[in-house]
C-alpha cells in the first residue's frame, strides 16, 4: 500500500462536492434574499417591479419616525418577554417536576410535551374555539366560578387580545423548555447529590448549589433561542388575531407582512425588517454576554 488513507487529509474534491449543494441552496435562498432585502430598503419600488430608484435613507427615516413601528416594537417586546419569561419559569419548574421518579411519569410527560408537536393551525383552531365569546369553555369556566359576570372578549377586546396570544404561545412552546431542561437535568451525575446528602445539605441547598449552576448554561441558551424564535414568530399571532383588534397584537413580523402584502409597500417593509434585525442583533449580543458570564462562573 502506497500511503495510509487519511480521512482528514482527504480529497478536496469530495469536500467541495458534498458541500456545494447545501451551500448553493443557502446562498440562493438565504444570502441573496437577505442582500436583496437590504437593497430594496434603499430604493423606492413600484408594485410588481424588482428594483426602483435609489432613495438613500428615506425609508429608514420613515420607519424611525412612524408610530406604527414603535407600536409594533412595543407589542413585540410585550409578546417576547411576556411569553419567554413565562415559558422559562413554568418550563423549568415542570422539568424539575417531571425529572422526579413517580408512577405514570411517561403519561404525564406525554401530555406536557404534546402541544409542541401539534401543528400551529391546530393549536390556534382549538384555542379560538375555547376562547369563543359565547360558547367557549374558557368563558364558561370563568363565569361559572364567579370570576367574572359577563363573557370576556378574549380575541376582540384590545385589553385581553395580547394576553390571549401569550397564553396560547406559552402553552404551545413551553414544552421546548421542558425538553431542553429535562435533558440537562438527566445528565447531572447522581453522586453529586449523594455526596451533598452525606454532608447534610437540605433539598433547597442541593438545588441552589448543584442543580441550578449545572442547568444555567442550557437555561440561558434556551432563553436565547426562545427569544429569537418568539421575536420572529408570525403564524400563531396572525392566525389568532391577525394583529388586531386595532393593531393591539401587531408585532414586527406582522407589521412587515402588512406593509409588504396588504399595502404592497415592499421598500418600507424591507426597511422595517432591516431595523428589526439590528434590534435583534443587539438583543442577541446582550444574551451572549450573559451566557459567557454564566459559563465563567461555573
Amino acid at each position, binding site marked *: 500500500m502506497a500511503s495510509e*488513507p487519511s480521512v482528514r487529509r482527504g480529497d478536496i474534491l469530495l469536500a467541495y462536492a458534498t*458541500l456545494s449543494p447545501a451551500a448553493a441552496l443557502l446562498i440562493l435562498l438565504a444570502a441573496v434574499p437577505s442582500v436583496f432585502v437590504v437593497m430594496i430598503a434603499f430604493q423606492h419600488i413600484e408594485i410588481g417591479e424588482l428594483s426602483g430608484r435609489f432613495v438613500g435613507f428615506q425609508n429608514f427615516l420613515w420607519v424611525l419616525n412612524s408610530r406604527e413601528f414603535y407600536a409594533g416594537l412595543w407589542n413585540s417586546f410585550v409578546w417576547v418577554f411576556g411569553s419567554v419569561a413565562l415559558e422559562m419559569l413554568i418550563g423549568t419548574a415542570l422539568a424539575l417536576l417531571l425529572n422526579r421518579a413517580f408512577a405514570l411519569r411517561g403519561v404525564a410527560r406525554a401530555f406536557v410535551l404534546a402541544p409542541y408537536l401539534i401543528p400551529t393551525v391546530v393549536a390556534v383552531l382549538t384555542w379560538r374555539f375555547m376562547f369563543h365569546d359565547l360558547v367557549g369553555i374558557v368563558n364558561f369556566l370563568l363565569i361559572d366560578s364567579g370570576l367574572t359576570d359577563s363573557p370576556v372578549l378574549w380575541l376582540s377586546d384590545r385589553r385581553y387580545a395580547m394576553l390571549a396570544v401569550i397564553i396560547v404561545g406559552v402553552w404551545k412552546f413551553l414544552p421546548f423548555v421542558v425538553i431542553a431542561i429535562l435533558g440537562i437535568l438527566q445528565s447531572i451525575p447522581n453522586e453529586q447529590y449523594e455526596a451533598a446528602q452525606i454532608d447534610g445539605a437540605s433539598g433547597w441547598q442541593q438545588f441552589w448549589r448543584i442543580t441550578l449552576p449545572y442547568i444555567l448554561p442550557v437555561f440561558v441558551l434556551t432563553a436565547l433561542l426562545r427569544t429569537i424564535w418568539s421575536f420572529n414568530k408570525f403564524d400563531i399571532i396572525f392566525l389568532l388575531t391577525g394583529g388586531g383588534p386595532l393593531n393591539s397584537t401587531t408585532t414586527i413580523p406582522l407589521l412587515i407582512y402588512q406593509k409588504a402584502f396588504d399595502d404592497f409597500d415592499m421598500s418600507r417593509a424591507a426597511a422595517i*425588517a432591516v431595523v428589526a434585525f439590528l434590534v435583534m442583533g443587539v438583543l442577541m449580543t446582550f444574551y451572549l454576554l450573559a451566557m459567557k458570564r454564566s459559563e465563567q462562573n461555573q
Partner: protein
Amino acid sequence: MSFAASTGAEQRSMIDVHHLAGRIMVYLLAFTAASVMGFPLVWMLICSFKPPAELIMSPPTFLPHEWTLANYRDLFVQTRFMSYFANSLIVASGSTAFSLVIGGLGAYSVSRFNIRATRLFSRFSLIAYMLPEVLLVIPLYFFLVKAGLADTLLALIIANTAFTLPLTIWFMRAYFAAIPVTLEESAMIDGCTRLQALWKVVVPLAVPGLISVGVFAFNSAWNDFLFALVFTSSERNKTLPLGLSTWIGQDYIYSWGMLLAAAVLITLPVLAFYLLVQRKLIAGLAEGGVKGG
C-alpha cells in the same frame, strides 16, 4: 446536633410523614400540569364527535350527549380536505427528503474537512438559521414570480427546504463529528472507496440522527403557514394549514365541528410519526445535543 433529643423511631416516623407529603405533592402537581397542558387537545378530540348543534350550546356539555362522526363525514364530502392533505404530504415529504440529502452531505463535509470553505459555511448556516421567515418571504416571492414558480408545490418544497437546511446541517454536523473517523479509515483500508465508506459505514451509524432531524424537518414543513400563504393563490395548491385558515373566522359558513375534525386529522400523522420513532428520536436528540454542546 439537634436530633440528640429525639429517639431514632420518632425521627424515622417524622421523615416518613414528610416523605409522604412530598409524594402527594408531586402527584398533585404532575396531575395538574398534565391536565392543564393536555386539556385543549382532549377537548378538541371530544368536541369533534359532538353534533354541530351541541357545539354551540351554552353552557357547553362535557361529553357529547350523542356521539357522531357527522363532522368527519362533512369534512370529506363538503370540503377539499383530501386535496389539502395530499398537498401537505407532498410538500412535507419532498422538503424533508431534500433537506436530509443536501443537508446531510453538507454536514458530512463540514464535519470531515477542516478547510476554509467549510468553516465559513458552517458559520453562515448558523446566521441563516436566525433569519426571520418574514424577511426571506419578500424577496423569495419576487424571485418565484419571475421564475414562474409562483403558486406551485415545488416553490413550497424549495422554500421549506431552505428553512430547515441550517438546522439539519448544524444537528448532523455534531452527529457526524461523534462518529469516529477511524471507522471510515479501516473501511478504506479494506478496499472501500471514500464514498462507499460514507454510504456503508457512516450513514448506517447516523440513522438515529437522520431520523430525529427528519422528524423536525417534516414537522416544520407540515406546519408551515407563511410560505403557503404568500406563495399559493389557487385553491388547488393549498396545503392544510392554509386551507384551514381560510375557514377560520367564517364561523357561520363552516361549522366548528368540521374544523375540529380537521384539526384532529392533521394532528394524527404528526403524533403517529412521533410515536413511531420516539425511542430513536430521543436517543438521537440526546446524542446530538450532548456532543454538539
